[in-house]
């Protein structure tokens, strides 16, 4: 048994053959299996085609044409003042032209769709698309605004750290700790790398003149370190203090006033070198001169002129922190006696 779908296809093929001049009997003979099913529809199609379709009577044609021309003239007269002035009808026509459903239809036809579309569905689809596009644009604007705000907030710290990295500073102070890549000079962490040049023999207590740059975390990356002979440094500097200056090497500067151009980082370091409880100095009452050497030191060792009051071979006043055992202490191990005391 042939299904209706197949019969519908066969019927259409027969109808097209009839339109090209074939007879109904010829079509039925071409499909003997479907002859019974196709006979009635083919005859009905022929009867429908034979329905009388008279031509429009001439008087009717003339009357129709006259009425239409009259309507056209009326429409032209009605639209003329609307075109010269800003008439609401012109705006209504504009909005009809800008109807989203019309735009959607034009787009579909541009993409190749040739079917008819009902206006209600078109309007609904156009409205849905407009809502989705509005939401997408809004979301994009919000994301872009957030990105701009984040970038504006992130800029200042970056600019500040860049300034810090390129500001040269000079530091004078006694060497407190010596390690492979990290020294402590005048209470300040000094970082060394392969580019750091060292002049002289570094040893705890020696005066170091360090030139370098302050890096992000506040440490000083040394470009060059000059170690001065402890005896030779007595003349230019009455008190070897840890100072921090952008370019020059000050003879003696109050610690509180020494401030490099990179103030936000260097300034906090300055107070660190201030002693929590100033102790009386052995050589005099000038507590400022003992600040650099005073950290973790025994009171007796607080001497504004440690090098002047002790023999050259004596241990440096800043060499021995009582609480911690610095790496520099390793250098003194050789000099200790069997009881662990330094000779």
């Amino acid at each position, binding site marked *: 048994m042939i299904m*209706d*779908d197949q*019969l*519908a*296809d066969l*019927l*259409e093929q027969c109808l097209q053959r009839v339109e090209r001049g074939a007879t109904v009997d010829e079509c039925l003979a071409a499909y003997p299996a479907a002859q019974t099913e196709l006979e*009635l*529809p*083919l*005859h*009905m*199609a022929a*009867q*429908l*085609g*034979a*329905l*009388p*379709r*008279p*031509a*429009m*009577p001439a008087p*009717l*044609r003339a*009357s*129709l*044409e006259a*009425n*239409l*021309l009259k*309507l*056209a*003239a009326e*429409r*032209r007269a009605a*639209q003329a003042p609307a075109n010269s002035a800003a008439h609401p009808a012109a705006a209504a*026509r504009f909005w*009809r032209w800008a109807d989203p459903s*019309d735009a959607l*239809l*034009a787009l*579909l*036809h541009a993409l190749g769709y*040739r*079917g*008819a*579309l*009902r*206006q209600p569905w*078109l309007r609904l689809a156009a409205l849905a698309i407009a809502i989705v596009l509005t939401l997408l644009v809004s979301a994009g604007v919000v994301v872009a605004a957030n990105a701009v705000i984040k970038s504006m907030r992130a800029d200042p710290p970056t600019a500040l750290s860049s300034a810090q990295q390129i500001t040269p500073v000079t530091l004078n102070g006694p060497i407190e700790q010596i390690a492979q890549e990290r020294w402590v000079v005048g209470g300040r962490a000094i970082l060394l790398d392969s580019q750091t040049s060292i002049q002289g023999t570094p040893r705890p207590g020696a005066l170091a003149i360090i030139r370098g740059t302050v890096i992000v975390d506040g440490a000083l990356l040394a470009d060059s370190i000059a170690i001065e002979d402890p005896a030779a440094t007595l003349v230019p500097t009455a008190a070897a203090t840890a100072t921090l200056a952008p370019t020059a090497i000050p003879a003696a500067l109050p610690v509180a006033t020494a401030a490099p151009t990179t103030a936000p980082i260097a300034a906090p370091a300055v107070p660190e070198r201030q002693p929590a409880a100033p102790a009386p100095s052995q050589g005099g009452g000038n507590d400022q001169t003992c600040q650099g050497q005073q950290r973790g030191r025994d009171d007796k060792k607080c001497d504004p002129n440690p090098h002047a009051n002790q023999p050259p071979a004596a241990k440096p006043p800043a060499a021995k922190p009582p609480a911690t055992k610095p790496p520099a202490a390793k250098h003194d191990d050789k000099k200790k006696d069997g009881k662990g005391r330094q000779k």
Partner: protein
Amino acid sequence: MEPVTDAELVVRLKANDDEAYREVVIRYGDPLYGYIYSITGDPHLSEDVIGETYLKMVEKIDTYTFYGAPFKAWLYRIAHNLAINAMKRAQRTLGGTALESAGPAADDPATTVAAQLDAEELRCAIAELTEEQQQVVLLRFVAGHSQGEVAQALDKTENAVKQMQFRALRSLGRLLSARG
């Protein structure tokens, strides 16, 4: 004068061009009248319906978009709806005897009485089909539209139109066979 496409015709109709109004009567007047007559079977009713069809076309031409249904399908849809409504009004007014009392078309001397009766029976059978089936058979076999044009006019696929066409013709045949 080179032939004007339907798209250009629509543009000129919207611009209230007199030549465009003449052209639309020349191009679609006779086919529309014949189509309407095949539904109503009455010349006077057909004259009224075609006048209303063109009037409706002028009223709605500003809102018509060519990218939707083709102009021809749009015009036939207007005519079909007006013809069906006119038929229903006439049947209500005359108590269902309007078709039987309609005489042969005065401008069609070739039409025999027998043929007229056959046509009347066929119209009655058509009226018993569903509205979509009526549109399919009338547009396809009376107005002479292609299957694609019928699909566009009814906003359906060609396959759907093919199925409806087969079932409508089969139903027509069964109705007429039942009448004897």
